[in-house]
C-alpha cells in the first residue's frame, strides 16, 4: 500500500510518500497507523496523537476505525485548512 503524507505530517516524517506492506493483523486504518508509527522516531512523533490526524483511503475521507479492505493508498494529514 502507498502511504502519502501532507502538511505537518509530511514535514514531521520527512517524506511525502512511502510504500508499506499491510500486515495480516492490521484490519483498520487505526491499526495500520499504529504499525507505521513504529518505523522511526519521526514517524512516532508525527503519528502519536490520532485525535489530531485525519485519513483518506483511496482518496475518500475515512475515520480510524474504517477497514482497510483492498485499498491502494492511505493518506495521513492534519485537519484541513483550505478556503
Amino acid at each position: 500500500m502507498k502511504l502519502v503524507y501532507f502538511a505537518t505530517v509530511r514535514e514531521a516524517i520527512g517524506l511525502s510518500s512511502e510504500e508499506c506492506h499491510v500486515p495480516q493483523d492490521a484490519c483498520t486504518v487505526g491499526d495500520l497507523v499504529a504499525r507505521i508509527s513504529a518505523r522511526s522516531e519521526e514517524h512516532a512523533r508525527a503519528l502519536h496523537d490520532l485525535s489530531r490526524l485525519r485519513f483518506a483511503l483511496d482518496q475518500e475521507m475515512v475515520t480510524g476505525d474504517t477497514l482497510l479492505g483492498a485499498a491502494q493508498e492511505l493518506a495521513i494529514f492534519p485537519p484541513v485548512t483550505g478556503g
Partner: protein
Amino acid sequence: MKIVRISNAAIQPDQELAALTGLGGGALASFTGIVRDDGGVTAIELEHYPSMTEASLYRLIEAATARWTLLGAVITHRVGIIPVGAPVVVVGTSSLHRAEALEATAFLIDRLKTEAPFWKREHYADGSAKWVEAKASDEARAERWV
C-alpha cells in the same frame, strides 16, 4: 453545469463565475476568500492532495445539488504561494430564485473548509512560516449543514 478548477496561477473571480451567467437563473450568489494581512502575513502557501482535491470539491457540488435546485455551481481554488490581497477560493452558484443560491454558496464554502484536502501555511516578512491550525468555529459552521 458543475465546474471545479485547481489553479497554480492567480484567479479572477469574475472569470471563474462567468460560466454561471446565461443559464437562465434569476439568482447568482458567490463567495471569494482573500488572503488577509493577518499579523504580518506576507503570503500564504496552499498545499493540497492532487489526486483527491478535484473529486472532493466535485462531491461537495453533488451534495449541494442534491439538497438545492441549482442551475450551476463553480468552485475554483488556488494552490501554491498566494500573496496578501489575492483570491484563494471562489465559490459560485446559480438558481431560479435567491434562497437556493445564497444557501448553497454558504454550504459549499463551509463544507470546503472542513472537508477538502487543502493545508495552509502562513509566511511572514522575516522569512518564517507557520501552519494554520484548524478552527473549531469552522467545524461548528460545517455542522450546521448536517
